[in-house]
């Protein structure tokens, strides 16, 4: 019995619980081109049921978003407050991300993560001036996918 328990214990080494990162994020770097600075940012997911706040931050330099896994497009309303030489202004822009989602099997304990191949990205130009795709693959590893300049 002791031998049987020892055998079961040895055979299960390293197999207890999930040690992987399951969630995958779309990462954007926010870069200022002039004297203005972004003081506040709210990111709202636009759905058929209405807008839903996904994340908010003060003086952000980056943005982390979760893409909807059961469709091929996610639209985010970016509600931005900027500081321009002491004066505050508010802008609303819409970021549209098109992608192909696919499940990625991690292991039996973790199940799967969701990875994405970005097919297109666009943003309205009330505040933002440009967009660059740095990495079109979204995985469970941290990487910068796009750079947004304002």
């Amino acid at each position, binding site marked *: 019995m002791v031998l049987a328990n020892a055998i079961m214990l040895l055979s299960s080494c390293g197999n207890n619980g999930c040690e992987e990162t399951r969630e995958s994020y779309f990462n954007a770097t926010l870069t200022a081109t002039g004297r203005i600075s972004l003081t506040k940012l709210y990111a709202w997911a636009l759905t058929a049921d209405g807008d839903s706040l*996904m994340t908010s931050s003060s003086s952000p330099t980056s943005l982390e978003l979760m893409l909807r896994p059961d469709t091929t497009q996610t639209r985010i309303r970016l509600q931005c407050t900027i500081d321009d030489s002491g004066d505050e202004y508010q802008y609303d822009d819409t970021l549209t991300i098109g992608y192909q989602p*696919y*499940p*990625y099997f991690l292991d039996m304990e973790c199940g799967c*993560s969701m990875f994405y191949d970005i097919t297109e990205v666009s943003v309205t130009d009330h505040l933002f001036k440009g967009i660059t795709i740095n990495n079109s693959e979204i995985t469970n590893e941290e990487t910068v996918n796009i750079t947004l300049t304002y």
Partner: protein
Amino acid sequence: MRKPSTSPSPIRLAALVAMFFTANVSLLAQGSSIPTTSAVKEKRAEGDATASATLPEGQKYRYATFNGMSVSFNLFPPVMNLFGKDYGSYEGTLTIDLHRRFFPQATAGVGYCNAESDDFVRYHSKMRPFLKAGMLYNFKYNEPAADDIWGVLLRFGYAYSEANVSNLYYTDAFWGETGPMSIDGMKFHSVWMELGGFIKVQISKHLSAGWDLSWKPFLHRGSVRQGKPYFVPGYGVATSQIGMGFHVYFDL
């Protein structure tokens, strides 16, 4: 009209290899130029009576270059199946004894997995082959009575496997749960190394038992776009880097 092929078919080639192997084993068993393990042991037994602990000056090895060979089977996976494991690898190994010091090995086998997790994720890997090659090194190679040996082992393994995974769910903090999803037709080529220790004990004239314990880092796990292998034939569960074996050796 289809012309007969000039190159041998895989089946024919396999048959030729098998014939070549059988012929060689027969030759060895008939006591041709290469002695059988039994002949070596008989000679050794004769010598043991008069053998001294120290070797004559200038003699490096007590035992012959070709000191016999054996086939062995790892009984650990079938035993684990009896304890309810839903995967297994079944293997046979040919081992050659050189000077009772070096034991080069070649292993061939098959492995399968039909597992279900606590969250009902199902992983199905068909019976697929694997190969290993390596060597055991015996520390007690020059001892007069060296029937029980122990030492270190180094092996390299390669396996090909195919897997389907089903009943997958993905949950994130914002969008909630997505699923169930399936991934079919993942094909993995995995390479690993085994580094460890072994003990081999003689039970009777032609029968020995052996245990080994090894650390098995992947050199190439073989992950593909859709995921990582959970089970690798000949390796076991990919998240566990510790392996053990219980082998029964038959001397040829």
